[in-house]
């Protein structure tokens, strides 16, 4: 996994609640393996007009936000399906941070395991940040994982919570399997104790 420490980047606003992973990547692209670049699947249908042309009004299509690497969204961002390709599509398109008042639980886990940092901030703070980046397209946000802070365009600094274990893995770019294997003794002991219970 790619490590993440700090970022200073353009932030794109997606000020809607309940943006589900079906919108982030429609189901028909789910059969693509990880090696495939997922950039073009990101919001594939949402960013197009019914005739298939790019919708110039969709935030990701706007020139000022083309190089955005941070997404700021409404509550319950990336709810719904467990599809990890929702993270891949964001990641491949350059995103490394998602900021929202709340996230779908599975997406949050998937993000942390794939180098995409989900940052939860209070709803009023997110609303305020959204207003700033909408008013000034291309405005930048700073994210500091070691310090656990987000600095909004107006210079206000907001602390966020992050799971210490996931933070460690993300800072180091560690994948968990290796880490878990270092607990082999404990797992084997558990298996001896647990025996064949619930093995069918």
């Amino acid at each position, binding site marked *: 996994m790619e490590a993440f420490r700090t970022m200073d980047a353009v932030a794109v606003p997606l*000020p*809607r*609640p*309940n943006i*589900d992973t*079906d*919108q982030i990547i*429609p*189901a*028909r692209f*789910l*059969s*693509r*393996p*990880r090696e495939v670049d997922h950039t073009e699947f990101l919001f594939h*249908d*949402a960013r197009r007009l*019914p005739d298939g042309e790019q919708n110039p009004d969709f935030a990701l299509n706007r020139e000022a936000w083309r190089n955005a690497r941070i997404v700021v969204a*409404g*509550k*319950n961002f990336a*709810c*719904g*399906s*467990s*599809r*990890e390709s929702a*993270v891949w599509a964001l990641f491949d398109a350059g995103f490394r941070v998602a900021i929202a008042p*709340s*996230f*779908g*639980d*599975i997406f949050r*886990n*998937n993000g942390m*395991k*794939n180098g995409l940092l989900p940052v939860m901030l209070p709803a009023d703070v997110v609303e305020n940040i959204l207003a700033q980046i909408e008013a000034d397209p291309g405005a930048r946000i700073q994210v500091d994982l070691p310090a656990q802070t987000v600095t909004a365009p107006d210079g206000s600094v907001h602390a966020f919570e992050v*799971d*210490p*274990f996931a933070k460690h893995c993300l800072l180091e770019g560690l*994948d*968990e*399997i290796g880490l*878990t*294997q270092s*607990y082999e003794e*404990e*797992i084997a002991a*558990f*298996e001896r104790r*647990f025996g064949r*219970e*619930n*093995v*069918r």
Partner: protein
Amino acid sequence: MSETMFEKIWQKHRVLEREDGQTLLYVDTHLLHDGGATAFDFLRNRGLKPRAPERIFATPDHYVSTSSRKVEEIEDERHREMVEKLDRNTREYGIKQFGLGTEGQGIVHVMGPEQGLSQPGILLVCGDSHTSTHGAVGALAFGIGSTEVAHVLATQTLWQRKPKTMRIRVDGRLSDQVTGKDVILAIIAKIGAAGGTGHVLEYTGSAIRGLSMEGRLTLCNMSIEGGGRAGMVAPDDTTFQYIAGRPYAPKGAAWDAALERWRALPSADDAVFDAEVSLDGSAISPMVTWGNSPEDALPIDGRIPDPSSAADAERREQMARMLVYMGLEAGTPLSEVAVDRVFIGSCTNSRIEDMRAAAAVAKGRKVAGSVRAWVVPGSEGVKRQAEAEGLHEVFRAAGFEWREPGCSMCLGTNGDIAQPGERVASTSNRNFMGRQGPGARTHLLSPAMAAAAAITGRFTDVRRLLAGEA
């Protein structure tokens, strides 16, 4: 000992807990479907293999055709490959697969309970968000992403931080034709699509106790649509009777021992939950969704809501956007909204009881000329049982298509999709924009309500249809 059922299962599967609160849990049962090839690629790239293949069970569902049982006849090469990969991967590692056309094949969340793999007290995971379904038997079951699937394959364990708990109590007697589907839609309408985020939901109360196993599976299935990490119902005699005699259920002395363990699972009377919600079951009507989130559900006698009634600007804008997408006008009675297609199926509502409920409505009636209606049984087992009962003939005589088991139009990964602008009355679980195909308009409802919509060509209170009033 005032533990919740969740707490008991969590403790039992705890391998270790780090100082930072991260807990390594041991997984009893891991289910796989044909969408999970990435995890095997990941494993192979690292030179790893499954640690406990005897705890893994697989079946193809997302990419299978619902018009044929032959893998070769899956037209789209990518889809065919997904089904073939599951077959190859399970063979290579000695994992039990319920293959296409065999008795056990089906939607993974129909297959687990049907085979008796989903049992009280176990920790069950699957790379699919609707894994919450299996909690209906009193298990801790939740969906995981593909990196986590690879982790479970390699180590049979999973890192988790302990979620919070929410008790959802539904008391009272459910009215005629009010099902598990209507109860969960009413719950989500109340708590919101993010209402259960970070929580394991335990459903309790007399209305829940009165649900059949199928009803409870439907209920727990949609826990994720209320944001819940998992959903559970305490096991009772309904549960035990359902499990007894299934292929993977314990037998003989092992059954007696299991029963003793299972009876100790329910939450203590004085168990404390982090959040409590309650609903009056007797006040729930057959429900239909109108928007693009399962929280946008209304009783069938409702009207399409007016954005100007929204509590805040954000909601107003969201409602307006959904009405445009859904092609609906505020104030229209739901019962005047016409449908183009009907889909009875998915891991939410494709079990035998769902087939029976829909067939009871279809019997002796005809699908409206303007409607194309499908029935897709959830598994080969459901299909065979339904055919033994003659339900397929009832459906066909009424003008429904009776198809082969799989996920089908629930999300259309196999190509079963609706056309842009088509309005679908669907027994599945998500009415998201584009879920059933770009531009498709999905309304969620129960199997009997879906069958009623097929007959009249619009949303209809099934109780009125059966009473000859609609």
